């Protein structure tokens, strides 16, 4: 019984995986036909790691509310699918390490510069070189901010605010970071010494794989009111930073997978797949992981804050733009777990929402957005991949009602790294990008092949599906000019 014959199309971009067997709720997938075809193909071909199977498994977890969701960038992960959302009742539900992943609060920071594309062009190449030199990236890269254990604890508690105190960035940045750049209830005691030791030299490093730093032009504004609120104008130059919580987050993930294995057994929770080991939200183990994940989130916010500072320094050195002229548009995570209030049916409820490869996309009026964005909702930052566009989107009222206010996070992979490395040749990818006017600096040629634009789904298609499904709305399309890869 693979269940795909039962996948029901209930709207042009909405599909239901009906509840059956161990499932406590149905699965609900917002996607276009092409994505659904690829998901069902995985099942038909007997692929062991199928995103649909992962949706079914998430739907079987205790206390899950409404439905296990998958958004248009869905693809197989471990535990939750990537592009997956699961909300849980605080009393009956569980907290799942595999609903967040190893790179806790991996996300995107968007900076807006006062430069126009014409003003940027003369020094584009030099700026690429300068960013490549100043922003530590790639395997083994070390940051400029070295911390003691005591200092790491402060960073875990205070997040981006701690980085600002240490001279990285400006206080105004904090208002434009999700949760003020500081997730409450972070308890450094719940994070192992090993996790902290691994992070000593990694604060302010970009990482590798799909992480990047891009200088982009605002190619098209699709929602003038929201774009104006966000300070985005057509032809303006912006900078996107895609990075996460580095080794600290990875170690928290590894530590708590182990701890949750024991907890699952202790609380006799039926686990459909080992990667979904979990604990009741109200249990001591559940609370510990939530506090540790908050530390991971704060580490990621601080990390992007430090990188933003290095970007400002580079632009200052090359173009003479002052740091305070480069504004944080927003900083948003796409691997997280948060307690939020959502209306399910008629009743507002406090729920624990896991988003794995998915962002918050809260609509206008929600108090979580910075005051300047209350009338539009906060920006949803959708990352592209080198040759392809990135998007700024925003949440919708419908998204609040049907998707726990969640948004897409990127194009989503279509090809495995192995297939991509076989299909694309790093040098060719680089020369193709250069012909398209995109300058790339990388620490890994092989990494470029694995991250080739052709290894990802078409981001335009993914954005269209999220828009047509009514859960997100496009605000502006950003096209890459300079790409720094780890």
């Amino acid at each position: 019984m693979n269940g795909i014959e039962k996948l029901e199309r209930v709207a042009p971009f909405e599909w239901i995986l009906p509840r059956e067997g161990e499932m406590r709720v149905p699965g609900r997938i917002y996607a276009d036909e092409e994505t659904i075809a690829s998901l069902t193909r995985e099942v038909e071909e007997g692929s062991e790691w199928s995103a649909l199977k992962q949706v079914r498994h998430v739907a079987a977890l205790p206390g899950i509310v409404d439905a296990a969701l998958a958004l248009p960038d869905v693809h197989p992960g471990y535990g939750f699918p990537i592009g997956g959302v699961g909300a849980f009742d605080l009393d009956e539900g569980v907290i799942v390490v595999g609903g967040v992943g190893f790179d806790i609060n991996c996300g995107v920071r968007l900076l807006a510069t006062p430069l126009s594309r014409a003003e940027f062009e003369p020094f584009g190449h030099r700026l690429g070189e300068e960013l490549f030199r100043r922003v530590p990236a790639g395997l083994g890269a070390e940051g400029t901010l070295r911390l003691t254990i005591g200092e790491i604890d402060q960073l875990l508690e205070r997040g981006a605010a701690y980085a600002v105190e240490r001279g990285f960035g400006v206080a105004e940045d904090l208002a434009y970071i999700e949760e003020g750049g500081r997730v409450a209830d972070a308890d450094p005691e719940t994070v192992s010494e090993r996790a902290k030791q691994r992070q000593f030299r990694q604060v302010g490093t970009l990482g590798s794989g799909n992480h990047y730093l891009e200088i982009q032009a605002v190619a098209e504004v699709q929602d003038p009111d929201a774009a104006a609120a966000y300070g985005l104008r057509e032809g303006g130059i912006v900078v996107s930073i895609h990075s996460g919580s580095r080794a600290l987050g990875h170690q928290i993930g590894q530590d708590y997978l182990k701890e949750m294995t024991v907890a699952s057994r202790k609380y006799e929770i039926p686990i459909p797949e080992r990667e979904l080991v979990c604990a009741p939200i109200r249990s001591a183990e559940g609370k510990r992981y939530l506090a540790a994940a908050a530390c991971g989130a704060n580490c990621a916010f601080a990390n992007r804050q430090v990188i933003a500072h290095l970007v400002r320094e580079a632009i200052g050195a090359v173009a003479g733009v002052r740091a305070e002229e480069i504004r944080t548009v927003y900083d948003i995570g796409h691997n997280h777990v948060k307690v939020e209030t959502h209306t399910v049916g008629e009743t507002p409820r406090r729920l624990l929402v896991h988003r794995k490869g998915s962002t918050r996309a809260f609509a206008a009026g929600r108090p979580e957005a910075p005051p300047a964005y209350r009338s539009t909702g906060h920006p949803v930052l959708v990352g592209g991949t080198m040759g392809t566009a990135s998007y700024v989107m925003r949440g919708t009222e419908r998204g609040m009602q049907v998707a726990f206010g969640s948004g897409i996070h990127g194009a989503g992979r279509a090809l495995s790294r192995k297939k991509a490395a076989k299909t694309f040749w790093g040098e060719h990818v680089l020369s193709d990008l250069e012909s398209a006017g995109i300058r790339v600096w990388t620490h890994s040629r092989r990494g470029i092949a694995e991250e080739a634009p052709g290894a990802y789904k078409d981001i335009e298609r993914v954005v269209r599906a999220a828009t047509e499904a009514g859960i997100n709305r496009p605000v502006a399309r950003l096209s890459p000019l300079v790409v720094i890869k780890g």
Partner: protein
Amino acid sequence: MAIEYLDHTADLGLRATGGTIEEAFCEAARGLFGAMIALDAVAPRRSCALGIAAESEPDLLVEWLSELLAQKDLTGLVFSSFDVRIERRGNGWRLEGRAFGEPLDPARHHPRAEVKGISYLGLEVAKQAGSWQVRCVMDV
């Protein structure tokens, strides 16, 4: 002994085989570092002693590979060869041994994407027809 990388859309599956469980674990470790760097370029100039325990063989594999990931960050070394001993101890399993390598040198080691963690997805340690096969999915 052999290493094979398996297709996983977002991450990277790894299968390693060996005549003994120790050989299979050493191959898996080579597979882990082989995903991140050019293994052949890493000289075994320095070593690091390791001792870990777990309640089952598959858990021991996750512990082993995640220990090596942690040591990479803690010591700045990357490893290309391994020597381990695995035995049953009480209700669980224990691995002791050494990893050999040298400090990461991006110019010589041609780094690729960093492995972030070792997931439980598809985790397997099995003896089949006289050889040991281990398998896991690495988050890249």
